[in-house]
């Protein structure tokens, strides 16, 4: 489903950084909503920002949009601090609640876009998007349906011609048909201009095929970051029968992200440490959804920042070269001794506990 133009746009934009966060943290009253966030998002990608609600997704997007300021650490957008005159015109942010002035008409809302984005606004494009959604220009925003409002809000964001588009759950609360159309619109827009898009979502199924970059947050920390192909290739889904009380040792030799045991059968998501040895089990590449569910259900899973998501300004930790990744190779550089032994022995990795409760509600429903 990924259009061809996406690849071209990505190549065109490659090498530049859209967002770089180093040690980013944000505290709300006494609670850290986001902590120790370090990652890099190259320009030209469509990045899925995934995590259960309360994981810090909206906070991260607000920080990138310059709506809030970090409590600690730093975030840079195209090399600039977000709330600057250089960054503002090229970043568009659509908050989760899709804020619009309810008393303004559709035409006045577009006029707002024109008035507040001098020199950047593409009015004909915005009107076309609105017409395409069959939204009457004279209608007041308060009278529009949820889908129409989302489309208008997106038109406002697109017509600004941003280089970085931050969308906080743009597709939630929409019917499946509208969701499909708007996702297509988003892809077309991003493909055409090489726009970097960060898309937060609870719905896992809608992300597959849309996104080529992944950022998974849980409890305010980055659990997983990197190219989708990269990240998927670093994992294996192993299914089969087990004889002992836990996973077979050949499987448990790899860092286990999540394991479920039901009767004699087991399903384990492991981070591949070389090849998974043969045995009475099947090894497959997990789908994006399986991978995300695994990480969302297992709070103790070791974090994985793929080389493609490492900040360039941070001290390098990794192997030389920037080869985007060979499937089957550990994406995380040399294994860190800190988590390796723990990964094999600690209970959540599947040896002693026989059954996992599903931790997070929303994502699992998708």
């Amino acid at each position: 489903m990924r259009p061809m133009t996406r690849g071209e746009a990505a190549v065109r934009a490659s090498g530049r950084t859209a967002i770089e966060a180093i040690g980013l943290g944000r505290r709300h009253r006494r609670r850290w909503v986001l902590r120790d966030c370090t990652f890099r998002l190259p320009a030209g990608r469509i990045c899925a920002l995934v995590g259960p609600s309360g994981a810090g997704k909206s906070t991260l997007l607000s920080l990138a949009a310059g709506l809030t300021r970090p409590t600690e650490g730093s975030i840079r957008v195209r090399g600039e601090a977000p709330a600057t005159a250089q960054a503002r015109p090229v970043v568009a942010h659509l908050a989760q609640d899709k804020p619009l002035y309810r008393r303004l008409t559709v035409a006045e809302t577009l006029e707002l876009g024109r008035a507040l984005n001098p020199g950047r606004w593409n009015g004909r494009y915005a009107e076309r998007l609105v017409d395409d959604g069959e939204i009457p220009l004279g209608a007041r925003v308060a009278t529009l349906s949820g889908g129409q409002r989302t489309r208008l809000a997106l038109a406002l964001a697109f017509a600004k011609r941003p280089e970085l588009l931050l969308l906080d759950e743009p597709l939630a609360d929409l019917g499946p048909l509208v969701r499909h159309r708007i996702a297509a619109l988003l892809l077309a827009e991003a493909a055409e201009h090489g726009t970097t898009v960060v898309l937060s979502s609870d719905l896992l199924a809608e992300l597959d095929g849309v996104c080529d970059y992944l950022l998974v947050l849980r409890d305010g920390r980055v659990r997983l970051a990197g190219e989708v192909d990269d990240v998927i290739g670093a994992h294996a889904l192993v299914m089969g029968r087990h004889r002992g009380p836990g996973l077979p040792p050949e499987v448990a030799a790899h860092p286990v992200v999540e394991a479920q045991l039901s009767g004699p059968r087991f399903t384990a998501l492991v981070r591949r440490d070389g090849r998974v040895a043969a045995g009475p089990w099947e090894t497959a590449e997990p789908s994006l959804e399986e991978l995300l569910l695994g990480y969302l259900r297992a709070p103790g899973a070791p974090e994985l920042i793929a080389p493609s998501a490492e900040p360039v300004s941070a001290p390098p930790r990794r192997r030389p070269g920037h080869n985007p990744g060979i499937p089957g190779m550990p994406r995380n550089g040399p294994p860190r001794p800190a988590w390796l032994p723990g990964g094999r022995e600690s209970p959540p990795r599947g040896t002693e506990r026989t059954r996992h409760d599903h931790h997070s509600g929303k994502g699992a429903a998708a």
Partner: protein
Amino acid sequence: MTSTAHLGASGHERTADTPERPRPTGGRGPLGGLVWLVWRQHRLVFGVLLAAAAGGAVWCAVLRGRMAAFIDAHHIAGCSQISLVARCSDTQGPVTAFRDAYNPSMKLAEAGLVLLPVLVGVFLGAPLIARELEAGTHKLVLSQSVGPLRWLAAKTALPAVVVVAAGALMSAAYTWLWQVGGDEVSGAYWYSTLGFNSLGPVPVAYALLGLAIGTLTGLLLRRTVSAMGVTLALMALVQYAFAVLRPHLLPLATAKFGNSEPTQVADSSWLVDQGYYTTSGERLPEVPCRPDQDFDGCLRQHHVAGQYMDHHPASDHWPLAFFEAGLVLALAAVLTVLAFRVMRRRHG
């Protein structure tokens, strides 16, 4: 789905990379655009305010004409109900009739001018930012190309202009009316709390203060209703504090009268304090003498030399009014600067 994608993409091809030039009619910079937005958002309140000011001004002008005619017809200019001025003898009847006819209207006008700053603070200032924060629409504006400080500048400047225009119109009209019917003849003296707050620069300054208090509390509290309540309370507090402080803003004039002299300052003077003074110059606000038991002897016993009256003559009115208005404006300016600092700290 693919067809939508195609539509979206082809829409681009036609208009790609040609950001629209500003229309001839809408050729405004970013601040101009913000001014349009702020006007559009608050045009109802602005309209009500300006219409009320225009209506009030017309009403004051009509009232002034009728009052002037009445005063001329009965020759009661400068006469109070009980007057020592010779030409005002036998004017008690007409003055009473005048007061019965016009005092309720003057009180109404004064009440309107005293309420104006409170209403501005509660219904324009408090919701100005709080409603945006409550509805999340500040995120919409701050996601556009303009920064938060420019936004706040437009958000406060345009209402300030409208408030100054409406306040100045109403205040000027009432002051004009008061010049014929104020002080002695109506008993609406310049130093009455309502009167002082309605004349000259004072209501305009308070209206700007109301706007500043409302804006800052809305920004800090982020809730429209609580910001309205706090604004109301703060405005009442500030008005009360200034009412207490007002006589002491400028030095008082002191009139001294010997024991046998009649104690009297002009009707238009604001009597702030009075009492007795002794031969050594000491002031006795109270003397323990009773008028029915050898009052003079008692006074002598306490070495009382006469009485004093601390007052502001009518000539102090405008200096006092401008001084107080200046203080109020300075307070409003400080609060506005604070609002900008809060905005900058919060949203950069």
